[in-house]
């Protein structure tokens, strides 16, 4: 398994380098350079400007600038955000963590919704329950996640007005967050996370449920499941051990490819729920042309996605022993 993982890791390095090259190239296309907004800022002195210009090597040709930028990033220096007057990494790291919480939470809910529904649909194929689930999911496929979120907010607000229940729908923490004990703080964040995560999970679940149902149906007809039944294993073992484990292989292999979409999907809900994640900050960064911030976010999420890909490879190796040999 180790050589397999190493091989995948080595393979991902060129992708990462090329991605950084693309990001750098796009930023080069942007009008002006990193310092254009800074030059307009009266708070930045000309000595500082000169120092920045030297640091980023803006007087040198583009390929040298790229190497310098890459070199600085390896040392953990992502440049300076002009809007916040702070190193980029300090600003974006908490945001990235927040987004990751939401993404992980929604991923967990996503699978815990899609897997049971998909398996149920395959086991009780064409039953009224299966048909009802299919219709509802088909309908949900048409909803953009942010629209679903707005509708949910509308109904929660109505519910709140009617019953006076305190259902948190915005932000990540309550007002009295700092006064809460550590456990209470965790619970508070969890309470804020659950609704956006659930909305995202539900609006995405339709696709995966269909795939799982189709896979299950296909595997259920295969010879080895019939053999397992013939030798007298219980229905539960036949479904979960023999069918399900084989049916989810393509899905596990696809988790890595799912992550970019997940991070993007989280972004929309962050905006709707005013959650302090990556995307709201990125959107303001566009307005202020804070290019280092945008580049930093994009590079770090790309790195994280590649890490996610490796994790999904490990998962695949755990579920499918054949991978280790190959």
């Amino acid at each position, binding site marked *: 398994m180790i050589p397999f993982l190493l091989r995948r890791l080595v393979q991902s390095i060129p992708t990462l380098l090329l991605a950084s090259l693309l990001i750098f190239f796009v930023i080069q296309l942007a009008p002006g350079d990193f310092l254009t907004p800074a030059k307009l800022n009266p708070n930045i002195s000309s000595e500082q400007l000169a120092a920045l210009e030297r640091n980023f090597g803006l007087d040198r040709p583009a390929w040298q600038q790229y190497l310098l930028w890459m070199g600085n990033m390896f040392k953990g220096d992502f440049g300076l955000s002009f809007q916040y007057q702070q190193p980029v990494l300090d600003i974006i790291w908490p945001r990235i963590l927040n987004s990751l919480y939401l993404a992980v939470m929604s991923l967990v809910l996503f699978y815990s919704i899609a897997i049971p529904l998909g398996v149920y649909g395959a086991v009780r194929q064409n039953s009224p329950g299966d048909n009802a689930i299919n219709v509802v999911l*088909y309908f949900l496929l048409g909803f953009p996640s942010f629209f679903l979120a707005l509708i949910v907010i509308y109904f929660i607000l109505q519910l709140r007005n009617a019953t006076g229940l305190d259902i948190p729908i915005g932000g990540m923490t309550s007002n009295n967050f700092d006064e809460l004990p550590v456990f209470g703080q965790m619970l508070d964040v969890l309470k804020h996370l659950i609704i956006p995560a659930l909305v995202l999970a539900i609006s995405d679940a339709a696709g995966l449920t269909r795939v799982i149902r189709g896979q299950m149906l296909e595997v259920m007809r295969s010879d080895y499941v019939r053999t397992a039944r013939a030798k007298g294993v219980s229905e539960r073992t036949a479904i979960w051990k023999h069918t399900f484990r084989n049916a989810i292989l393509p899905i596990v292999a696809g988790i890595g490819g799912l992550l*970019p979409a997940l991070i*993007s999907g989280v972004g929309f809900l962050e905006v709707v729920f005013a959650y302090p994640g990556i995307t709201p900050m990125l*959107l303001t960064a566009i307005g202020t042309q804070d290019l280092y911030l945008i580049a930093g976010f*994009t590079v770090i999420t*790309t790195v994280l996605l590649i890490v996610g890909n490796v994790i999904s490879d490990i998962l695949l190796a755990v579920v499918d022993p054949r991978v280790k040999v190959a």
Partner: protein
Amino acid sequence: MTTTVPERPAKPTSPRSQSQFGVAWSQFRKNRLAKIGGFMLILLYTLALFAPFIAPDGLSNYSTSNITRFHPPTPIHIRDPQTGGLTRPFVYQYGQQLNMDTFVNEYKPTETRCPIFFGVRGDEYRVLGLFPGTLHLFGTGAENPNCKVYLFGGEALGRDLFTRTIYASQISLTIGVGAVLISTVIGLLMGAMAAFFGGIADTLIMRFVEVLAAIPSLFLLILLRSVFPQDINPIFALYMILGLLAFIGWGGLARVVRGQMMSVREQDFVSAAQALGAGNGRIMWRHMLPTMTTYIIVTLSLSIPGYILLESGLSFLGIGAVEPYVSWGGLLSQAQEGGFASITQRPWVLIPGFFIVFTVMCYQLLGDGLRDAFDPRKRQ
């Protein structure tokens, strides 16, 4: 002596062979849901084409003296409240009053009635940018400019939301589809090139596809959007978003095309074409790519909903269409204005979202119908 004209032998009625498309079409016609989806889409596009005629107001008309910010929808009455008899449809004019308890401007219907006329003269427009007109399907005429029909209510600047929604359909319905078409062409071209030339071209293109897939699409779009200035020309902004959507989406198709082309390249008909002296371009376009027609039609129709959703999302985030143009997603962003707690006071701003859902559903039904129609295993 008479000669008889020999009777013409009746044409042998050979069984007409059906083309692949003929079979698919007859299969498609059996699928009722897909037909409904297709019909509704035709209806939607007609609506979008004649948007200026159907909308009672101009795209960006609002009064600076009579501010109608978030005007509630005006119900249309057809019965006279006094006599109870049928009359010409009318709406009440709404007046505003500051509620001294909540300090919120409240809209209340007044006694003034505004009759609704059909086929009124109003704002000038051009259908397709060519045919000028002033006729509108319905409206209250020019007698009392402060008395208007707000079928879906008003939006943040007091413009008629129904008008905006209908106009927005022009953008929402075309950008997603256009982006899919362009990205399909790019995907075909890149995939075919990678397979045909192999070697460095193949490595470069496939690496590029990998990189595009590795960066989260939303962030890539935001990054690419930041290349363009904020105060961009509204028309140019539409082309920009079209281009960006097309640019990020071609990777998956290019991979599949490459795989298919690689296997086709080795087949006899390609060698035959080469032996006959056909050029690279001809072999690619006339001999190799047509083997993928079915696959492309099906993926095309199934990926349109995704693009419409993505476009609406971008407009919702404010990186899509720019004022005065707007798409359904952009209209939804008004639900966010002034903090989401105020959404309960103006639920009608959510209406454009249902247009997105409806369109996406129609495309899904159509796409599923096409997929089944081309799938030999699902023939009836």
